[in-house]
């Protein structure tokens, strides 16, 4: 049995009919076609599925789509300005913080939430802010450098 609901994603209201058990990640990707958000572990461990819910990072793999009704969801697609890249996207590319790229959308969501509430984070605060996001390629150092540079460039 499906539930009709409205999901507000990147400022757009999407009417959808979904089973109560569907996770937000699956609905974003398969019903709304927003495939920037990735499925990694499907267990809240890796953070590839990170989205913002009312501005705070949440693992969309382990969050029911019906839980998100009435809240504002932001995905990586909603981070990009009309012209060019978000500053975190640009610094991640320039610092070499992207290799396979699978973790990158989740990293951007966690980092953007961190910088939104703390515009000048310490290295330790950046590590904690990204502690729910795994990367298997870069060794993290270049991702941390990209976030620090984004903060310093304001």
């Amino acid at each position, binding site marked *: 049995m499906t539930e009709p609901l409205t999901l507000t994603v990147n400022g757009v209201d999407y009417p959808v009919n979904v089973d109560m058990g569907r996770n937000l990640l699956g609905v974003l990707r398969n019903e709304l076609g927003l495939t920037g958000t990735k499925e990694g572990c499907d267990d809240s461990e890796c953070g590839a599925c990170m989205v913002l819910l009312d501005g705070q*990072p949440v693992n969309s793999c*382990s969050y029911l789509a019906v839980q998100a009704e009435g809240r504002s969801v932001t995905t990586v697609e909603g981070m990009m300005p009309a012209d060019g890249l978000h500053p975190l996207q640009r610094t991640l590319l320039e610092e070499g913080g992207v290799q396979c790229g699978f973790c990158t959308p989740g990293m951007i969501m966690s980092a953007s939430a961190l910088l939104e509430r703390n515009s000048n984070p310490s290295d330790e605060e950046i590590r904690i802010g990204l*502690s729910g996001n795994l990367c298997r390629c870069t060794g993290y150092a270049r991702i941390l450098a990209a976030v620090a540079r984004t903060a310093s460039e304001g």
Partner: protein
Amino acid sequence: MSFTIAQTLDEALTALAAGARPIAGGTDLVVGVRQGKASLPSSLVAVDRLDELALIEPTDRGLRLGAGVTHARLMTDPKIVAEYTALADAAALVGSPSTRNVGTIGGNVMNASPAMDTGAPLMVLGAVVKLQSAQRSRVVELSDLWTGPGETTAATDELCVAVDLPSRPTPSGSAYVRLEYRRAMEIAIVGAAASVTLNGDGTISAGSVALSAVAPTILAVDDANAVMADQQPDAAATAIAAVASDAALPISDLRASDTYRRHTVGVMAARAVKAAARRASGEEIGVPVNRAIGVGAVL
């Protein structure tokens, strides 16, 4: 299948009376369902929009935490950090920022994991839980709430609406220390919370210790007060290590053997006592202790 977002507490309690199960952040429930450990209840009522469950408010006996208070708020609330520091230590170790943004104290308590991080701090701080149904309301001691892994004495129509913490004696301090293999998305290998009150000469006048992940429920160390009373903190810590290891009833699983857990829970208990005593003496140790000092450091 039905999913309702409760707008009022009455609406939530009515739904529970009709057979619905509550969901707040869903960080235990939804993960468990997706792992196949549980099936999704056919009827869910979301309780995460209820303002009255999101309050942190002083009472004439101490501090009331609404059941919907998130870990992110517990670890940063100035009154909790200053007076109920072990709880802030624990909240700061839960999951990752995303877990802490939606996971709640009520959810952690009622999920009743023996490895839960907030349980041992709540026990040493003397917390009680307020359960409410459409018909009645009652206050339950934690020792009367948890009966086994995932098991509580709450009826299915009862919702945990608040956790009440008594006022803190002066000078007192508390701490929660967890053995962990990694810093995020970790479950306690073992953990220990301690609360101590000091005499003027620096000896311990009263204290309590509780342990995580070494028994079917969070385990209070019954002899803790007798063992620590009138001792200097270092001597109390040495004594409590042996008592805590003796009290533990650990199992072996993929994260640790029973032998390792029995030994290390004593080490964690000693460190928690030392950190609590340092806080009681007025020293500022940042939250969580695991990061401020390092769980591997000698206190």
